[in-house]
Every structure is written in structure tokens, then in C-alpha cells.
């Protein structure tokens, strides 16, 4: 295991953070605005979100760089790519203040390899550029997350490995009858073997339908590999109530089920869409009192 991950995991499972997008909306991010641009426009607000998670007890926080690859930024100003990544890491590091590790977020390109919308070379160049910028800015690890295509995840992983910091790869399992496949149809076993083979330092599952569906996927990832497992489920599915988006799972329910995730072998536990600092607080409380 990479020493950085080993020292974090020395005292058992690590609580990570929750969603950033919904937090940014609560601070005034308008629809249609690229969230990562706030690293330059409103660094104070991005800092505020990171700080909320640190205060809630996150031992790992992410960065506001999910969509800061050249391909996803193409219609917003690709020339800002390096700057957005560098600033994203500095904001999170400052908010962490040494109390939490900073894992830098790398999201998908938003284009599909199989339909020829983007080439392997373009993906590799874009992910390599982002990974180098994040590592140079001092990120403790890289998190390639919310991937729906194993091929794209592998390209990103190979492009990120030369930085020398740990690389975690987390995919979305939300397809097929059992909701246990990626969009492209890969099983947890196949994903685990391919990512381990390509040198991932940890593997995982995030987003998807909710914590119930993540449980079996988590157990299967754990069984298929010796690598640490990273999980960040959604707070259920969003529903529209009185014109407002509400997620179905409460922090308490989430935290209760998180104990099952831990039993299923999760090493890093946090939340994706719909989770908040309250979820992290509930996780900390619940996993602390767990046997």
C-alpha cells in the first residue's frame, strides 16, 4: 500500500467529505455556471465549503477541480486549466490546515470514447495535464472519480501515475438489472482487476442510486482486490418537493448504513450528491461508537 494511504488508514476507516455542488448552490452558484470557475471568481466561498467539511470531521477533503480538465473546460476557457487546478488545491489545503489530507478530484471528460467524440490521445493529454498541475500544487493524492467508462478511467490512471502520489479510481455502478455494472457494463470484479493491474492505489464506487445499492458493490470490490476501497454513495435519489430538490436519505439513516459499509470492507467512507457537512458529522459520530 502507498505509505500516504497506509498512514491515513492506520487507525481504521477514514471519513472523507460530502457533496460540493449542492453546497455551492446554497452559496449562490447559478445554474449553468461551471462550478470550478469559482476557484478564481469566489475563492472565499470555495474555502468556506472545504472548511465546513474539515469542521465536521472529514479527515480527507477533495478539491473543487472535478471538471477542470481541458476537454470539459473547452467551452469555458481551456487556457485556465492549470490555474483552476492549482488554485483548487491551494484553497483546500488552506482550509484543511493540516487537519485533513487533500485528495484532488479528477472527473470524467464528458465525452465518449466509443462514439469517437474524443480520442485516447486527447484524453491522456488532458488527464495528464490536470494530474501534473494538481500534484505540483501539493495534493496528497489524486482521486479519479465518477467514471462511467473503464477505458477512460484507465487512461486517466495511466496519465496520473507518473506524478508519484497515490491515485484512487472510483467508478459509478448504476446500470444493469442489479445496478451493479458501470454504464458500459463492467462488473466490480472486472473493474477491480483492471484497475489493480494498471497500478491504482485504491479503488472504489461513488454516486449511483444510494447507499443500499453501494453495499453489495463495496463488498465485491473488497473481495476482488487487496487494495483499499473508497466509497461515496449518494443520499438516495432526488425528489421534487414544493419546487425544491430534496434527497431521500437523512444524515442519520446514512450514518446507520455506513456501519454496514464498513463491515462490507469500506476503508474510505464519505458521501456524493445530496450529502452535506451534517452527513459527515453523523458519520463521525456513528463510526466512532461502532464496535
Amino acid at each position, binding site marked *: 500500500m502507498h505509505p500516504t494511504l497506509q498512514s491515513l488508514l492506520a487507525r481504521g476507516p477514514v471519513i472523507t467529505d460530502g457533496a460540493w*455542488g*449542492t453546497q455551492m*448552490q446554497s452559496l449562490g*452558484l447559478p*445554474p*449553468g455556471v461551471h462550478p470550478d470557475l469559482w476557484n478564481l471568481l469566489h475563492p472565499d466561498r470555495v474555502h468556506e465549503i472545504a472548511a465546513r467539511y474539515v469542521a465536521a470531521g472529514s479527515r480527507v477533503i477533495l478539491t473543487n477541480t472535478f471538471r477542470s480538465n481541458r476537454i470539459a473546460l473547452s*467551452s469555458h476557457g481551456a487556457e485556465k486549466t492549470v490555474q483552476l487546478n492549482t488554485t483548487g488545491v491551494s484553497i483546500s489545503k488552506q482550509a484543511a490546515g493540516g487537519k485533513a489530507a487533500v485528495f484532488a478530484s479528477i472527473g470524467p471528460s*464528458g*465525452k*465518449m470514447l*466509443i*462514439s469517437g*467524440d474524443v480520442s485516447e490521445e486527447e484524453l491522456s493529454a488532458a488527464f495528464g495535464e490536470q494530474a501534473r498541475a494538481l500534484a505540483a500544487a501539493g495534493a496528497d493524492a489524486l482521486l479519479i472519480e465518477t467514471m*462511467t467508462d473503464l477505458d477512460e478511467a484507465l487512461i486517466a490512471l495511466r496519465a496520473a501515475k507518473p506524478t508519484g502520489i497515490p491515485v484512487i479510481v472510483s467508478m459509478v455502478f448504476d*446500470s*444493469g*438489472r442489479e445496478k451493479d*455494472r458501470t*454504464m*458500459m*457494463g463492467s462488473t466490480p470484479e472486472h473493474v477491480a482487476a483492471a484497475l489493480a493491474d494498471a497500478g491504482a492505489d485504491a479503488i472504489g464506487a461513488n454516486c449511483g442510486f444510494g447507499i443500499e445499492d453501494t453495499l453489495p458493490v463495496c463488498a465485491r470490490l473488497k473481495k476482488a482486490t487487496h487494495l483499499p476501497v473508497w466509497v461515496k454513495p449518494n443520499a438516495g*435519489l*432526488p*425528489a*421534487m418537493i414544493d419546487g425544491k*430538490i430534496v434527497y431521500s436519505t437523512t444524515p442519520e439513516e446514512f450514518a446507520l448504513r455506513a456501519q454496514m459499509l464498513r463491515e462490507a470492507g469500506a476503508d474510505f467512507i464519505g458521501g456524493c*450528491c445530496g450529502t452535506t457537512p451534517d452527513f459527515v458529522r453523523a458519520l463521525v459520530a456513528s463510526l466512532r461508537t461502532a464496535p
Partner: protein
Amino acid sequence: MADLQKLHDAILNGNFKIARDVTQQALDEGADPAVLVHDTMIPAMNEVGRRYEANEYFVPELLIAARAMKASLELIRPLLAARGAEPVARVVIGTVQGDLHDIGKNLVAAMLEGAGFEVVDLGVDVPPEKFAAAVQEKNASMVALSALLTTTMYSMKAVIEKLNSSGLRGKVKVIIGGAPVTQKYADEIGADGYSNNANAAVALARKLLAA
């Protein structure tokens, strides 16, 4: 003689070159284009759909099958049009205003085209006015809306309102989809249907248009 089983299998296995070649051969030999579509190609796409529902096929297989179907249809459409035959129906599709995600929208567009619909793709970040204008201009009978974000799904409602105020709502069916979208949301904003995957979207479109 052109081997129509080969055409069927080429679509099923997503081999667009074979699909195109066998279609061309069949047409050269005087095959009726409408019969090719109904007796060979559509049954192949139906089998693709069945395999998807049965977890034997996933998105990559859907995409290459739709591409093979499209390659054949490109040879057939001009012949049908020359006879004055109209496409199954015309669908205006797009990702709603404020949202730049196009993977789901492109998948649905490919599957609808594969099923013989004429698809007018307006792209991403499409304002309500543009949907309404396209419906009018293209004489479409269906609008398909996509959104990936909880912050942009509200724009779907704005499109329906725009269709209402333009007096177009009565002539089109509206279907919606995307990660945060649910049947409940479809009901709430008055859409005609919701689908959570590209394959089911085709069945839904057929059902709503009785096509």
C-alpha cells in the same frame, strides 16, 4: 441473392460495414426498401433491445448496433422519401438550458434514429424558445429533453411552459430523462413520459406516438 440474415446479424452485432454492404446489395437486386426495414432491420433492433433488457447488452453494444442500423437507413431513406413516405416521426431532442452534458442525449438520439425516427438534435444548453421554434419549423411530433443536474432539471418545466404559451403543446408529446429525473418529476411538470435509459426511451416514444 443478398443474405438478409447477414444484415440482421450485422445490426445485432453492430457491424456497420457489413450492414451497409448487404443493404446496398439487396437494394441493387431490387429489394423493397420498406420491406427490408420492417422485416429485417427493425426485428434486429428489437432483439438488441431485448438483449439490453436481459443484461446481455450494455451501452457499447447499443451504440454500435444503432450505428449499423443508421448506416443501412442512410441508403434506404432517400428511396423511401422519393416514394413520398414520411419517417416514423420527427423528434426534436436537446439538453436543456444551463446544462452542457450530452452523453445521455446522444445515446437516446442514436437509438431513436436506429428505430427509424428522424431526429433533430439541437445540442446542449438549448433555451426553451429554440425548442419551440424547432417544433414549429420541423413539424415535429415529439420533444425529448435531457438534463444531468438537479440545478438544470428545472429548465425542463420552462420548455413545457414555452410549448404551452406558443400553442404547440397539443401537437407534441414531451419525454424527459437524465440522472436526477424521475417519473414523479415528469408527472409534476406535465411531461408525457420519462425513461431511465436509451433503449426504453425508444419503446416509450413508439408507445406515445403509436408509431
